[in-house]
């Protein structure tokens, strides 16, 4: 039987719902909160509530944002004739960090997965179609998993009839890797997708 005070136990249970946080870690986090000043705890709680209150999805690209449309969709300096399709907002952030892409995004919110019961209607696909008017190029930046590949093929089928350039980001070796340790499938893609020097 647990001898912890009820309120502390509730906190532990809540914290252990976080991804990657187990019972033990949740306990440590809870005791950390308990030992720190009340102001810190309030600030933390407020941050959590603010995130839920202020942030919503951009109605155009489904990126997370405080404004609607989001900063990227409303930025006139960006190239509005190119859309990059990503799986999650986090993927978009990763691409933004490179600073090499100046077009728009569309966040699918997942990939097609028969095993998990996710079909086309569960993704942000219906909103994508009207956005494609006047678009010159669509770039796919979807994780190269089995479900990712299915999704990519499905979407490219839908888009191809519209006379838009469709491309995908390159698949191959990450920087700093030894070729001898690369798996065969990756190497096969790397050789197939070699570029002219």
């Amino acid at each position, binding site marked *: 039987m647990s001898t912890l005070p009820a309120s502390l136990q509730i906190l532990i249970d809540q914290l252990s719902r976080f991804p990657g946080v187990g019972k033990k870690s949740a306990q440590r986090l809870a005791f950390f909160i308990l030992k720190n000043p009340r102001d810190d705890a309030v600030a933390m709680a407020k941050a959590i509530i603010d995130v839920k209150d202020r942030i919503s999805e951009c109605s155009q690209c489904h990126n997370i944002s405080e404004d609607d449309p989001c900063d990227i969709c409303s930025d006139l300096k960006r190239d509005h004739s190119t859309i990059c399709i990503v799986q999650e907002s986090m993927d978009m952030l990763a691409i933004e960090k490179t600073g090499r892409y100046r077009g728009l995004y569309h966040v699918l919110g997942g990939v097609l997965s*028969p*095993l998990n019961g996710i*079909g*086309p209607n569960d993704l942000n696909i219906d909103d994508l179609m009207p956005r494609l008017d006047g678009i010159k190029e669509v770039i796919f930046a979807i994780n190269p998993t089995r479900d990712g*590949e*299915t999704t990519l*093929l*499905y979407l490219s*089928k*839908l888009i191809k009839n519209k006379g838009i350039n469709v491309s995908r980001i390159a698949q191959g070796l990450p920087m700093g890797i030894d070729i001898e340790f690369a798996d065969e499938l990756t190497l096969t893609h790397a050789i197939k997708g070699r570029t002219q020097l």
Partner: protein
Amino acid sequence: MKLKTLKLNYFRNYDNGFFEFNDNLNIIYGDNGTGKTTLLEAIHFLSLTKSFRAGSDADVIKNKQDYFQIFGQFTNSKKKEISVNLNYSRHEGKKVFLNKNELKKKTDIIGKIPVIILSPGTQKITEGGPLIRRNFIDRILAQINKEYLIALMEYKKYIYQRNILLNKYREKRINKYDKYIETIDEILIDYAYTIQRKRSECIESFNLVLKEVFKKTSHFNKEVSVKINPNINVDLENFKNVFREKLAAKFEKDILFGRTGTGPHLDHLLLLFGDRDIRFIGSHGEHKILLVSLKMSEGIYIEKNINEKVIFLLDDLFAMLDVTHCMNILKEVGQQNQTLVTTADITAFKKYGFDFKKYNVKTFGLPIGFS
């Protein structure tokens, strides 16, 4: 590939076992239940990470113990030493080490130590259902061709996904062939094409080997061959289009049954004896001879393709064939390949004047030290 030494810990009836094999023929004899087949099973574990007998890995651990270990020391045709170690514990599961380095993917060992197992259980290849014969050809191809292995694994996974989708559609009462299914089918078709192409290539060249081997091992004046009856029976040029049309045409029926009713996963493999299916006309003895020929051919075929000698594991050969046939086979394979054969009765060898010296035979009487 030659197995030099084999060490066993807590494997079936062995506490500690240590065996040194010679490069040609090794005869393992002993009464029933002394652990003859177990030795072959251990080698099979090192080659394919699993047993050829049914049951889970935990069943193989000796009573009241927590783990088993198998150590094998091999040398390949280039005289390079290779050590393989497979450990299984009830708590930590299975681990495979190649030259003392743990393999991240256990299946990476497959194809490194090629073995061919012939045991009374493998008789189902000639007698059983189509699945077993498909597995026979799939296993040969998977060992010699990575492209085929990948295509086959992916194809099976997509068939599984498609079937789940079919069931969902039935629940939701959808029966329109939509873009989602079309997408999955498009991927399936690509993998199926590779499978169809490789299978027909393989069977053509495999038949040449089989014919040769059958002539040597049997006295029958008949032609034998393997024939594939593809589910999509068209030439490769039209394969993709025909398969695509069939998938679409049978879609409503597929929804009804909740599974995909067309494709290479339903190919039939026929073993022809003369020009007829052996399942219908073969006698008991003919089945056995054909099985032995198939297995010998499998070995030779794999060898040709990977440039490495296979190890033959012949479990209770005498239970399957008459003595004359057995002797012929042992003389033939024993000289070419390292061969391990188990028998309950070693006197037969002496009775039929088998020349142990000439064929460089090493014998193992079980239990150890019993002979």
